[in-house]
């Protein structure tokens, strides 16, 4: 994995901008949603970050199946754990926003249920990994499962919500209330940097996790040899 030394600075600068500009810029005052439209820079970006993390994980799982290098396996599994963090944050923030917009924490919406299924599929990944002792077997089985998990993600977050008859959630369903095309131009000025910032934060956390894991493995080898 590239060292990504500059990624933390991108994360710091863009997230600082996101929090300040995200709270200060003028936003269109839509009924019911009102000022909470600003959550676009926070809640929505959690999901972008999660999808990028799981995507990275899938790419490294494919790489692992071709190379069988431990490093690829470590990156794939740590990326899943980082993605789960963003997924949990996306669910919690989404529930808060839903409670204050739709009146309940959870609605029986195709996108919401899809997100829940996706999270369960990835939680199952960590359970599957922990259930095996033998390192190479663990890596191989979880890499295959991981590719399957990303297909499930695409299906439940992109395909099924789009074919649904109706959806409360903006941007999805046939009667979408708000799509990126309709997005206010001033909001784009914060939305795009926000996406970049949160994704960079994901990669920063990922590199930290990978470095810790690799050091752990190195120490294990050292103590086994001494």
């Amino acid at each position: 994995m590239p060292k990504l030394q500059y990624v933390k600075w991108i994360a710091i600068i863009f997230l600082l901008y996101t929090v300040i500009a995200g709270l200060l810029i003028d936003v269109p005052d839509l009924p019911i949603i009102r000022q909470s439209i600003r959550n676009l820079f926070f809640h929505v970006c959690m999901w972008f970050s999660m999808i990028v993390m799981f995507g990275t994980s899938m790419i490294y799982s494919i790489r692992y199946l071709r190379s069988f290098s431990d490093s690829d396996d470590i990156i794939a599994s740590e990326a899943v754990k980082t993605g789960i963090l963003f997924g949990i944050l996306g669910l919690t923030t989404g529930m808060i926003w839903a409670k204050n917009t739709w009146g309940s924490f959870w609605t029986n919406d195709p996108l919401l249920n899809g997100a829940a299924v996706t999270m369960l599929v990835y939680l199952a990944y960590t359970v599957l990994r922990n259930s095996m002792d033998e390192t190479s077997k663990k890596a191989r089985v979880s890499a295959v499962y991981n590719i399957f998990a990303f297909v499930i993600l695409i299906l439940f977050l992109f395909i099924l919500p789009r074919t649904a008859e109706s959806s409360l959630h903006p941007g999805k369903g046939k009667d979408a209330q708000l799509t990126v095309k309709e997005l206010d131009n001033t909001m784009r000025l914060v939305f795009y940097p926000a996406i970049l910032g949160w994704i960079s934060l994901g990669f920063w956390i990922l590199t930290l996790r990978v470095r810790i894991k690799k050091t752990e493995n190195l120490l294990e080898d050292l103590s086994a040899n001494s």
Partner: protein
Amino acid sequence: MVESKLFVVILVIAVIFTGIILQLILLDRKLRKLEKRTEDLMQHQTTHKTSNQ
């Protein structure tokens, strides 16, 4: 603030902040374990060397 629903945004930012802090605490713990193992390994090696002499 309740009328304008700005508090929802503040609440969401607070939740995300908490999540990142929890992640930091987790990584901090992992690092501490690694530091301890490194120290143990160093000690083990020094005792090994002295017993060899």
